[in-house]
């Protein structure tokens, strides 16, 4: 080992032998770092409060301005009920379809291999990157009156479903992909060696392990679907009691200065959003635990 130069070698220190060290009083700096940390947390909370909490609180306050009875009246108004029902049913339908197609697409992306797969994988996120109004416009072009495929669903409930299928496409796929990737192949191999055919193996071995992820993705697509606006507003026609969804009902309420109606239905969607967040959170934790 090379000899260290004098700048690194140390002579023994003359250590002041004391039993109770007479301290040179240095200023105690314990508070410093804690204060800085508290400041960061405080600023973050203030930002969140200003940007998110206060506006949300305003919606809740506005919906109950006239009291509980008035709120109830608004929420049970026939047009509101129709809009909420349509939103709910359409979203549920879309979620069911996504549960199947999303899992299928995730399966193909993980287990299969073909040229251009990475492009297909990247394209899945397009509904996230593309503005909803643009999505609505092009869906109208392809599945509306001028449809080159001769499929015209414009101004109908089917149009709503098509639009929702577009914007919710990525959720289940992206929720299932990582779980599928980490799934232990040995389970399937064991099942096969015991005589299970591919379909049975899928049903009894793979699917139960994917279920939390599928449900988590489904919950998130449901949340997106019930609030969706931009992609629906052009293609559905927004006919009350027929093709008017909750978000359009709210929009019309704002434009028509009927704030009470808008706020009341907004609170319903708000509660749904919270519920979706909570459920998806629980489910996502469960799906992670499965591959521990």
């Amino acid at each position: 080992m090379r000899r260290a130069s004098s700048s690194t070698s140390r002579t023994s220190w003359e250590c002041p032998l004391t039993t109770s060290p007479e301290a040179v009083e240095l200023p105690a700096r314990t508070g410093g770092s804690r204060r800085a940390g508290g400041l960061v947390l405080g600023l973050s909370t203030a930002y969140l409060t200003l940007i998110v909490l206060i506006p949300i609180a305003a919606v809740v306050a506005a919906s109950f301005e006239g009291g509980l009875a008035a709120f109830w009246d608004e929420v049970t108004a026939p047009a509101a009920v129709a809009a909420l029902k349509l939103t709910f049913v359409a979203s549920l339908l879309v979620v069911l379809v996504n549960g199947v197609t999303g899992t299928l697409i995730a399966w193909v992306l993980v287990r299969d291999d073909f040229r251009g797969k990475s492009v297909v994988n990247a394209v899945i996120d397009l509904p996230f990157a593309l503005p909803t109004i643009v999505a609505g416009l092009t869906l109208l072009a392809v599945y509306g009156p001028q449809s080159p495929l001769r499929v015209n669903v414009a101004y109908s409930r089917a149009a709503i479903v098509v639009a929702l299928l577009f914007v919710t496409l990525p959720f289940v796929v992206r929720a299932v992909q990582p779980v599928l990737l980490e799934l232990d192949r040995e389970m399937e191999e064991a099942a096969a060696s015991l005589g299970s055919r591919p379909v049975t193996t899928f049903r009894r071995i793979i699917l139960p392990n994917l279920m939390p992820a599928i449900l988590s993705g489904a919950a998130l697509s449901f949340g997106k679907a019930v609030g969706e606006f931009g992609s629906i507003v052009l293609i559905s026609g927004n006919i009350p009691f027929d093709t008017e969804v909750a978000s359009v009902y709210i929009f019309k309420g704002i434009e028509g200065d009927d704030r009470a109606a808008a706020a009341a239905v907004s609170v319903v969607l708000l509660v749904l959003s919270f519920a979706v967040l909570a459920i998806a959170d629980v489910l996502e934790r469960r799906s992670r635990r499965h591959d521990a």
Partner: protein
Amino acid sequence: MRSAAGSRYTLRTVALGYLALILVIPCSMIVYYTFRDGLGPVWDALTDPSFVAALKLTLIAVGIAVPANTIFGVMCAMALVRRPPKHGTWLINSMIGLPLALSPVVVGLALILVYGQDGWFGGWLTENGIQIIFSTPGIVLATIFVTLPFVVREVIPVLREVGTDQDEAAWTLGASRFQTFRRITLPAIRWGVAYGVVLTTARALGEYGAVAVVSGRVAGKTETLTLHVDEEYLRFEYVAAYTTSLVLALLAVLTLVAMNVFKPKQHKEVADVDRGPPGYEAV
């Protein structure tokens, strides 16, 4: 498990077919409809003052929302991971997650109820001659709201994974907390931040519902690119609408490219797999 080749092709065909119908064909139609009448109308649409104004406004909104939410995102992630508060974490997490799950029109309504004429701050704002709703600040606020979660949610897992060892080492070497943050922590989380910024930008460019509510929709003044699409369509100016859509779609494709460049780098830190943007996972 070796599926029979036949069933593998079937699955692949069904999956790709579904994607083609729902995703690919509609998006490719944008190009077709833009250039259907030739290049002339496209050029007119791009040089139209209202398009340019819309582009400017969109860029302003993005230019404010992205830095604001990036700074907030990193700060909030540091607070939540390194020094979590004893109570109320669930409230903070809910507030962060809400913009992802909430309908954009509700966002718009919420902002009107606070900053509008009869809103909570309305009186004070009118007294001081500040206009938020139906004007640029309102659009910026709406954009900030809907793009709030992305940087936070991308940085939190990276920060957790990186841990405190490197920071503690820097402290023992004499670096102050700020120096450590700048030289050690930030570089360690840089891919998480980059990915979050890409997502934030994409969402800011594409927001429609919330700005549709808070904007006065005055063409040339309070329109973003997305509102411009809507406006031109309602005026039967289809080429203009599709041209603007194509511009937005190209920006979307750029986003996808950026996402795919940054995603593996970011996920190398977290040792995770393709999770997509936040909102696809709830944590």
